[in-house]
């Protein structure tokens, strides 16, 4: 039974992340940023960081911490805000996002002290790094888990399937891949650009334990993340809405990489319950 208070806490955190997302996006205008794909993952990130993962912000390199890898590196703003909310990054540092000389560029760069476990941005690489971490845990007899957040568009990359093949071979039941199935990629609907079909079936056929959930339903996410699948890696196909949270961006791929105007910023704040 999932604790309702925990769900509420995560939902509140996700709302605050979206609110901060608007502030930063508006602060950056007229510069564009990865908007839509940064919002579809907010509930997954909030659930991981505020309800599931074990970590210690005062000891970010703790050997037995759970590891998170943002394989879809462009989904970075929601990630940085989540790390700030968790206490890895200060609010002041967060405001350097998009500025010259920042250590928080448009795709994450490994920085253990700030809770950033890997460098990503070139798609199709995170799952392999997650496998290396999961293998290390097995070899060292450590109990930590490795979570990899991927995009469905990212699954166009052949390297993804090299990794998908390897994880069950090594029996990595300490590895969890979450696919943000928002059904869009850079220039259009996935079904138009490159149809990847039934991802759940594909992962299953490679030997993964798979589940498909609503990627915005915190209770569903918690259940999927905590499932026991001894012997098999776990793939969670999280059906999401690109641009989730705001009426103007939900399911609208024009917001893949876009500029937030003052008018839409105000609308977004209202939709977050702000003023």
């Amino acid at each position: 039974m999932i604790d309702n208070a925990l769900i509420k806490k995560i939902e509140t955190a996700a709302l605050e992340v979206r609110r901060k997302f608007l502030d930063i996006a508006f602060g950056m205008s007229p510069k564009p940023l990865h908007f839509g794909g940064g919002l579809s993952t907010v509930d997954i990130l909030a659930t991981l960081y505020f309800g599931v993962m074990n970590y210690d912000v005062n000891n970010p390199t703790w050997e037995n911490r759970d590891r998170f890898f943002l394989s879809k590196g462009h989904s970075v703003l929601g990630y940085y805000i989540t790390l700030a909310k968790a206490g890895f990054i200060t609010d002041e540092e967060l405001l350097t996002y998009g500025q010259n000389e920042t250590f928080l560029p448009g795709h994450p760069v490994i920085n253990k002290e700030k809770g950033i476990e890997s460098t990503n941005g070139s798609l199709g690489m995170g799952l392999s790094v997650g496998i290396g971490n999961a293998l290390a845990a097995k070899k060292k007899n450590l109990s930590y888990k490795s979570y990899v957040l991927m995009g469905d568009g990212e699954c166009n990359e052949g390297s993804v399937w090299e990794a998908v093949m390897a994880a069950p071979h090594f029996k990595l039941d300490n590895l969890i891949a979450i696919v943000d199935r928002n059904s869009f990629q850079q220039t259009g609907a996935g079904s138009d650009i490159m149809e990847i079909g039934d991802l759940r079936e594909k992962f299953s056929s490679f030997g993964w334990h798979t589940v498909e959930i609503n990627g915005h339903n915190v209770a569903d996410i918690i259940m999927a993340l905590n499932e026991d699948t001894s012997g098999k890696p776990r793939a969670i196909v999280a059906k999401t809405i690109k641009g989730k949270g705001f009426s103007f961006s939900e399911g609208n791929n024009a917001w893949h990489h876009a500029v937030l105007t003052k008018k839409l910023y105000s609308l977004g704040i209202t939709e977050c319950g702000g003023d």
Partner: protein
Amino acid sequence: MIGARPTYGMAVMELAKHREDLMVVTGDVSTSAGLDRFRKTYPEKFVDVGIAEQNMIGVAAGLADNGYNVFTVTFAPFQVLRCLDQIKVDLAYSNIKVTMTGLASGLINGPLGNTHCCIEDVGALRSIPNLTIVSPADGVGIVKTVFASAESDQPIYIRLTGGSNNPIVYHDDINFQIGKAIEIEPGNDLTIFAAGTMVFNSLQAAKILAEKGISASVWDMHTIKPIDEAAVRKAADKNKLIVTVEEHNVIGGLSSAVSEYLSSYKGNSSQLSIGIDDFFPKPGDYPFMLKQCGLTPEQIAQNILSSLE
């Protein structure tokens, strides 16, 4: 005489005795890499990812990031070109130390065609910041390189050239340091910088030149990146002619590294670049390949003589 690959396998076996943290990651090449004994002796230190080099680098990075001293091994074209973006992002940009090993680089795989030869690896890797590139001259050089690589903090590429009966360059122990070239043969008239198998051929070429009264110094420029600038400076101060000899395209490798430095150094020396002249050679056995590319000792000597005329 012993081949590069069995020497490498033995060096890694020996290294395992000294380093608890060693981990070898391969892409279905344990036999080709001389690693069968290692795989049987240390199964817990051996990971085979199958024929999937991109995954190999990512998995290696993940292991290395958790404290393992990781060596990846596969044939040079696949070790470098197939996973170049992973090398850039997961290792160099992330500053995660993995030692990559490119087997059978250069022309030794001539009978198999240019898919399996590799004359581009150094050029491709040299433009990536934060990487070291070492091309040992013989068995002693390989053992020294393997042990030095394990100690280094930076991602490294070990380029293995030559076949199963590589000639011996070093009959005694050597003082080997990554980044520091070794002057094997002193000489006054010109300086030869060579890497990998071309060190031996350059020594032979120097003997031919000596018979004609020309004294060439021969250096083992085992580290191509970072290039030993002091050695290049010394040659430029002393000689009018600097020669580079490599089993690699003349574009991007040792020749380029030396000339890039020379062009910024005020000297009067000119450079002769001996290597594969930017073409895909026709298939054939190793002696045929070397001859086709002008890399036999006689051809190297003749090439130098012509440029002195």
